[in-house]
């Protein structure tokens, strides 16, 4: 299916969604309430039988965008489906019942961004060690090793090991209370 045909079919079947087709890729934007329906439609009606990936994007105050990429093996067309959840309660219906492959991806998005997928069979951490505190892919997550390590960019041009101590800069991304020590 061409991107144009796919976009037309998507618009036809999901009138509530915003559908963009640009430079050969089709993106469907849906409300969190319509998330599961949109993905069921993608699988059953738009022929996107292959689940590629799901992830989230930290949009700051606007919350989190959750994005899924699915593909049609027969029709060779790609589809991005996305929605936005709030920062205060980032919850979304799990699509593991529609695409089983979403299981690990939702677990990863859960531990990395703190998005809760309602109805997921086992939302346990996938990559992080047990007891890990925080969501490392959120933009406000502080990378603790950066407080310990001297920022290689803290030197001025022409400075070496002997650079003056007054220029111990606080590296980017480290809150004021954290350093330098």
């Amino acid at each position: 299916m061409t991107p144009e045909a796919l976009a037309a079919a998507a618009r036809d079947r999901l009138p509530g969604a915003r559908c963009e087709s640009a430079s050969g890729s089709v993106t469907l934007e849906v409300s969190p309430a319509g998330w599961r329906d949109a993905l069921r439609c993608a699988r059953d009606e738009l022929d996107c039988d292959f689940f590629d990936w799901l992830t989230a994007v930290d949009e700051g105050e606007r919350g989190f965008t959750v994005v899924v990429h699915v593909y049609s093996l027969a029709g060779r067309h790609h589809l991005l489906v996305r929605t936005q959840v709030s920062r205060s309660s980032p919850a979304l219906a799990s699509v593991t019942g529609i695409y089983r492959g979403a299981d690990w991806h939702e677990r990863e998005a859960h531990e990395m961004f703190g998005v809760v997928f309602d109805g997921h069979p086992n939302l346990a951490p996938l990559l992080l060690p047990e007891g890990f505190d925080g969501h490392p892919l959120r933009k406000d997550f502080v990378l603790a090793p950066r407080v310990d390590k001297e920022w290689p960019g803290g030197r001025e041009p022409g400075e070496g090991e002997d650079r003056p101590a007054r220029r111990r800069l606080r590296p980017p991304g480290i809150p004021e209370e954290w350093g330098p020590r």
Partner: protein
Amino acid sequence: MGAPVSDPGGGLPAPGHGVYDDSQWASTGDLPPRSRGVIALLEENCTACMLCARECPDWCIYISSHKEPVPTEPSGAGRGRPRVRNALDRFAIDFSLCMYCGICVEVCPYDALFWAPDFSYAERDIAGLTHERAQLREWVGTVPPPPAIDPGTGGR
């Protein structure tokens, strides 16, 4: 079987030799010029401006330098005013941290950093993945010529 075991650590090649060589894997000659294998430093072009070290998201570029007086010409502009330039003391990239994003190559205003396709520099000791200045300079010899620009673009 039967070969003398010179390496008590196991079957890895000796330090400094890649785990993959061209006979086992792809040849770098088959790779497109845009390949991100390793980063080469043309230190003649580097002014130690620190931009790459500051932009590197992984903090894996280490630079130190000192200021050196530039011999002034006996006559002409700038005469009498002592001038200095930065001279590199150390330039190193730690490829055990590098994520090959290419930001340093993009940001360098003096065309001192280049991608080279060689990927076969696995090491037994992780410290060996920090390539110092001399090694980074050697990679320059493997930088492919840039591909021709697309027809109809770039002309003036």
